[in-house]
């Protein structure tokens, strides 16, 4: 009887019980070794896979959105078209203003930057990071700033390979950025809270309201997001601003990389 019991007990971690787990773990370790030993080859292999994932995700969104109410979509479409027209006009006016200002200062800020395709983005990639299909060979270096559509600052290049790089978003935990909020340009420190959200603390007396624009340094002040909620604790001297990025991080497909010369408090590494 005792012998039978011991055989059963020893069989708890037997090959047949854990073999699928061991097989999966071995695969994961092999992939990790390939990444550490040959990072370039690793990303060459995985980039097509990410592209397929993107295509599948896009098709899925289209399929699901097809079930929504058509009338609601029409109304939304009309409202967005009107907003688009208004924004296009405003954009044109602002572009003209920028040209005038640049003429005045004869600055060299009109650099085009490096255009890079996004291989992986949240929510597939955790840690609020973007994987880009451009690296050292395209001229990307550590500490450069990534911009989305409309010149919205997104994050900082934190890892560079020959043909691939990673951008740590401003919303990543541990990333702090000096910025401004509101029309008066109140100086704040923006800290990443994860999941695409940022926080900042300001004095209770500062007249900040929900909807105020938050700016980050680039060439000048660039809109990085909007205040979506203000949390107030009666025992604290300040209030906490919850900031939503100006750009939907889930749909970023291209970014522009530029060296702005602005220091950010993230210790970037060259680890692949």
């Amino acid at each position, binding site marked *: 009887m005792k012998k039978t019991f011991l055989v059963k007990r020893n069989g708890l971690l037997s090959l*047949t019980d854990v073999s699928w787990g061991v097989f999966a773990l071995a695969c994961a370790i092999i992939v990790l070794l390939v990444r550490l030993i040959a990072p370039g080859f690793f990303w060459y292999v995985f980039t097509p896979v990410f592209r397929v994932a993107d295509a599948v995700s896009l098709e899925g969104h289209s399929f699901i959105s097809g079930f929504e109410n058509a009338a609601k979509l029409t109304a939304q479409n009309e409202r967005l078209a009107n907003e688009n027209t208004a924004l296009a006009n405003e954009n044109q006016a602002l572009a003209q203003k920028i040209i005038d200002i640049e003429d005045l200062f004869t600055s060299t800020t009109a650099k085009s930057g490096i255009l890079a395709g996004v291989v992986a983005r949240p929510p597939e990639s955790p840690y609020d990071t973007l994987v880009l299909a451009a690296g050292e060979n395209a001229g990307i270096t550590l500490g450069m700033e990534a911009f989305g559509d409309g010149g919205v600052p997104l994050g900082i290049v934190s890892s560079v390979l020959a043909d691939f790089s990673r951008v740590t978003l401003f919303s990543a935990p541990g990333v702090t950025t000096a910025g401004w909020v509101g029309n008066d340009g109140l100086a704040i420190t923006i800290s990443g809270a994860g999941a695409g959200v940022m926080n900042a603390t300001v004095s209770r007396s500062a007249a900040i309201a929900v909807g105020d624009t938050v700016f980050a340094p680039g060439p000048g002040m660039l809109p990085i997001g909007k205040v979506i909620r203000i949390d107030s604790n009666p025992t604290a001297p300040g209030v906490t601003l919850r900031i939503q990025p100006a750009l939907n991080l889930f749909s970023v497909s291209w970014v522009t990389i530029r060296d702005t010369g602005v220091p950010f408090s993230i210790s970037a590494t060259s680890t692949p």
Partner: protein
Amino acid sequence: MMRGTSLSFSTCGTLTLLAFVSVIFFPWPLTIMLAFTSSFFIPLLPLAIGLFADTLYYTPHSGTLPLFTLYGALAAGVSIFVHRQLRTGIIGR
């Protein structure tokens, strides 16, 4: 022959494959859910999935840890412990 604790060979294989595919194709909360569910049958799978996710997405910089690997190891440890208790107890007989 490879098989899981109480599921068939093909079901365990499908779960393992699905969990790996979900790291790339699905949002990460779904991957966590899948790995956690699979851990009932394949104890080491959360660790493997955590390692794979961090291989793809983790960037080392100050203040961050490879959380997927750490939580995967924790889940695997708990799962192995629970399997051990079930097997030695009267519940699994």
